[in-house]
Every structure is written in C-alpha cells, then in structure tokens.
C-alpha cells in the first residue's frame, strides 16, 4: 500500500494517527491543512479539489518515501481530500513517526512542501458573492525554493525558449544506472529533459561508488534505478523521473523504447547492448550507445529513425561478453565512464535541439590516457541486405526468454544436462564446480568452435557470474544449437 492516498470523505486525524504509533518512535509530528475562509481579500465559502489521481498517488508515495529516507524518519502517511470541502475541513493530513522530534518535524515539513510543489492537484474556490475560480497555487513552486533556472542555456541562440520547450516535452529512456548512466542522468536532468525513465535491475554495491556519484554509502543495497531517480528528482524537481527496476530483456522492452524519443544505452555487457540496439531498430527510435574499457571508450549514435548503421553493422558476430573485461574484471577510473556518459548526454541534446555536429554513421573512439579521439566512418554493412531490422528480429527469435536457467548444479546433472564449465583453467582450479562429470572448455575455445554439440543432448554452460555463459549460449544458439542454456547467476549464485 502506498503511504499516500486520496480520500473522498471527511479526514479523521485520530484514526489515521493510530496506526503510526510505534514503540521505537520517540517523536510523532502531524500537519493539518484546512480550508480557510478567505483568499486574496475575497471571502471563500467552499473548495473543490481535483487531481490526476494515478499520477498523484505514485508521486505522493515517492514524496513520502524520499522524506523518510532523507530525514531518517520511521513511518509516515499522507492523505489528501478530493471533492467539495467547506470552511474548516481538513484538506490534507500528514503524520510522521521518528526516533526524535527533529526528524519528525523535518520529514513532516518536507512532505507538505513537496505535496504542494509537485502533485497534480487543483482547487476551485467558491466565493461568498457566488463567483468561483480555479486556483493554481497547489503546484506552484514553494516560496522558499527558487525555480530551476535555465537562463544560461536559454542564452544560447540554438536553444532559446523554443529549444527549452522541446527539451521539456522530450521523453528519454536511460538503460543502466552505472558510471555512464549517472553522467547521462545528471546532464539530461539539469538540461530540463521533461520525462526521464531510468531502468536498472541491479542494486547499488559499495564498489560502484567511486564512479557513480548519484549514490553514497547509505544507498548500498538499494535498487539503483530508484536511488538514481530519487537523486535526480531532488536535483531538478521540475522534471518527471520514473524508476524501473525490471531487467531490460523482459517482454516490455520494445514498448518502453517505442514510448521514448531517444534511448540511451548505459549497460555494461554486449548482450544488453544488442537488446537496446535491436529494440531501437524495431521501434525506429534513435539510440545513443557507449562502452568503456579502463582508460578508453567508444561512442555510437544509431539513427534507427533514418535507416542508419547500427551496432550489428560494427559487430555482426554477436555478443562477446567475457572476451574482453568489463569494469569488474578489467578495472576502470571514474572519469572514464563520466566523460563517455557526458558525451552521450551531449549527443542526446544535439538530437533534441537539432544541433550541428551529430555523430552519424560513425563510431567515436576516445583514449583518455593519450587524450586522443578518432571519429571513424561506420557505414551500414553491405552484407546486411535485408536491413538491420531483419537481423534484429532474427536475433529476437533465436534468443528466447528461457536462455538463463536457475537451478542447483546437482539437480541439473540429475536432470541429464551436460554441464560445461567455460571458465579459465585458473578459475576452475581456484574454485572447482560442486558436481562431477562436467566438461571443462574455456570460453575462447568454445567461441572457436571447440564444443562438439550433440543435438540429442541438453547443455548447461557455467561461469562465475552467468555473464560469459549467457553470451556463449547465445553464440551457440545462433549457430543452430537450441538445446543450450546458461546457468543464471553462475557459480556465485550457487554458493548463496
């Protein structure tokens, strides 16, 4: 249940406060907003409240959750009235339980200010002379908080009021809230992109913090999408930020991309990058992709809306996760994803504002040690006769949802799976698989065709975390071996 609700009947503060009583709460603060009998010198007799309910309930829930987290309160509830109210009635009620009075007062104040500032609620005042009027005071900026000021970018002749309105109307989907995503979200949020959706199924880890400045130690363990969205909402309260904690490979990926004007790929593995690329190609939505490796990065803009070249034109041999290291295996310095993420944000703004210099059918290579960059022409692959969309569709058809399976290795062996350990010999020696009878074949040799697949058997590929085995299973399926699966989460998930 959301901690925010609307009520069409009278609000009863006592019955709302009772469930918030807790033995660990030394402080309880409540606020009642009531209908007063005057507004700007006119006598008011009654009020009508209307709201965009679905949006307001979701946003109200976020307001309460943010206030609890930021001020260290334990529990809170906010109820807002709808419909006709007479003078003296309670229009909004907030109650907060906290360890001490300071947290209770602070969270309560933060909730009422945010409710007034952010929620889509309107009120119509009825005056004693029979007149009435809609008053837009509810979501005007709070008096204590200045409006987000875009004057320094409005001053650019290429932006201006028209460009700013275009940004405010734009919807951008950011897949991945890691090093790249933090930079992208910050700059797009600051620029006033009106609706940003951030998607990430992972949780914040302590090892993320050095390069992902939207998170602090207190966020470790929180869903990344939620923590990132909360920070960007704090940073720019005038935009809408949605958090999605599902994996991008679920059945709604295409619909999410189609609902966006631009999709930004901030993922950290090839399998995900191809999924973003393919969904963008199918939807005809431009995609801005980037990858980093230690001190270097690559940037590509896929103009799916203009039949441009795509990730598959550059890397037609499908995903190669595990072939080269990701940030975990190879290491990375914080400014590298930050710089590449800022370049992505810049390309998004160029697209939205129609600026010059957009990366077209090209790949930009950036080397931050040598401070060099190289812009390489990347035309559509001439062998891709039917177009990238057909390739993308074929890839979708050969990559069913069930590629990853989660089960104990003993159970897999008992069920007749041929278990193939694709880790490097050193990893196998350090941590042998907890089953016998498995085959050992490092990924590199598997990709060279080293696995003789018996079409009559089922294969389960295993690696440390399930990333390399996923890529290897995709590789084998693309070569006509449907009976190949990847152990989800790898050996690490077995230990838990």
């Amino acid at each position, binding site marked *: 249940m959301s901690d925010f609700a609307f009520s069409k009947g009278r609000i009863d503060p006592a019955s709302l406060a009772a469930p918030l009583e807790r033995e660990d709460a030394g402080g309880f603060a409540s606020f009642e907003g009531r209908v007063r009998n005057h507004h700007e010198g006119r006598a008011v007799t009654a009020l009508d409240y209307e709201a965009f309910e679905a949006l307001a309930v979701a946003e109200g829930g976020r307001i309460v959750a943010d206030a609890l987290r930021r001020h260290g309160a334990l529990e809170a509830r906010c109820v807002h009235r709808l419909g006709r109210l007479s003078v003296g009635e309670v229009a909004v009620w907030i109650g907060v339980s906290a360890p001490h009075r300071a947290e209770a007062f602070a969270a309560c104040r933060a909730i009422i200010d945010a409710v007034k500032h952010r929620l889509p609620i309107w009120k119509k005042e009825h005056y004693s002379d029979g007149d009435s009027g809609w008053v837009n005071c509810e979501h005007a900026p709070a008096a204590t908080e200045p409006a987000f000021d875009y004057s320094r970018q409005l001053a650019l002749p290429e932006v201006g009021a028209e460009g700013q309105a275009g940004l405010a109307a734009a919807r951008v989907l950011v897949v*991945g809230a*890691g*090093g*790249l*995503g933090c930079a992208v979200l910050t700059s797009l949020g600051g620029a006033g992109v009106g609706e940003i959706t951030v998607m990430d199924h992972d949780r914040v880890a302590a090892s993320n913090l050095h390069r992902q400045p939207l998170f602090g130690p207190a966020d470790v363990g929180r869903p990344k999408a939620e923590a990132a969205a909360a920070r960007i909402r704090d940073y720019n309260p005038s935009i809408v930020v949605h958090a999605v904690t599902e994996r991008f490979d679920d059945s709604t990926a295409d619909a999410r991309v189609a609902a966006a004007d631009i999709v930004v*790929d*901030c*993922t*950290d*593995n*090839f399998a995900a*990058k191809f999924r973003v690329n393919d969904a963008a190609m199918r939807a005809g939505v431009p995609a801005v992709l*980037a*990858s*980093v*490796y*230690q001190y*270097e*990065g*690559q940037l590509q803009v896929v103009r799916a809306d203009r039949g441009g070249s795509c990730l598959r034109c*550059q*890397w037609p*041999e499908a995903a*190669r*996760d595990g*072939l*080269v*290291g*990701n*940030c975990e295996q*190879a290491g*990375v310095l914080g400014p590298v*994803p930050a710089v590449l993420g800022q370049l992505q944000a810049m390309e998004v703004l160029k697209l939205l504002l129609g600026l010059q210099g957009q990366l077209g059918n090209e*790949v930009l*290579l950036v*080397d931050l*040690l*040598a401070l*060099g960059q*190289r*812009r*390489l*022409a*990347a*035309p559509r692959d001439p062998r891709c006769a039917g177009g990238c969309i057909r390739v993308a569709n074929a890839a979708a058809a050969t990559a069913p949802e069930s590629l990853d399976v989660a089960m104990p290795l003993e159970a897999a062996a008992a069920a007749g799976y041929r278990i193939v350990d694709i880790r490097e010999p050193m990893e196998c020696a350090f941590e042998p698989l907890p089953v016998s009878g498995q085959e050992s074949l490092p990924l*590199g040799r598997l*990709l*060279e065709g080293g696995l003789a697949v018996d079409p009559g058997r089922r294969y389960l590929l295993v690696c440390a975390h399930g990333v390399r085995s996923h890529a290897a299973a995709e590789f084998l399926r693309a070569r006509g071996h449907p009976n190949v699966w990847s152990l989800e989460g790898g050996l690490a998930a077995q230990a838990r």
Partner: protein
Amino acid sequence: MPRLTLHYYAVLREQAGRSSESVETGAATPAALYAELTARHRFRLAASQLQVAVNGAFSGFDQALKDGDEVVFIPPVAGG
C-alpha cells in the same frame, strides 16, 4: 616496403604495450597484417573477433593496403 601507421585500443594496446607504432610490412591486407602482428605481440584475440578501420573508416580485413595507410584495430568493449 610500404610503411603503415597502426593504432591499438583496449586489450590490444595492453598486449602490444603501446597505443601506436609505425611498421614496414609486406602484408597486403589487414588480415595478413594482423597475422604478422599476432606473431610479434602475442595478440590473444582472433581477427574475427575484431574490427578494423583503414584511413578513418571501418573496412573489411580483405581490403588492399598501400603505403602511408593508417590502420586501427578495435576490440569489442562493453563496460559501462
């Protein structure tokens, strides 16, 4: 023999121990050139796992090379 300028990225840079070099070579194509370099630098990636760009544009491994060409070998990277 033709002289070429080579640039390396990511794991290739690490394995070669440099980000660029100038070589004289009889290799007529990027495929032949990469085979020659693999012997010298002990590259562990196969040519089929890489992309190559000649004079600022992605090209095939069978493109003819000529004196003064700039060749860039690019491994896949996916970190984020």
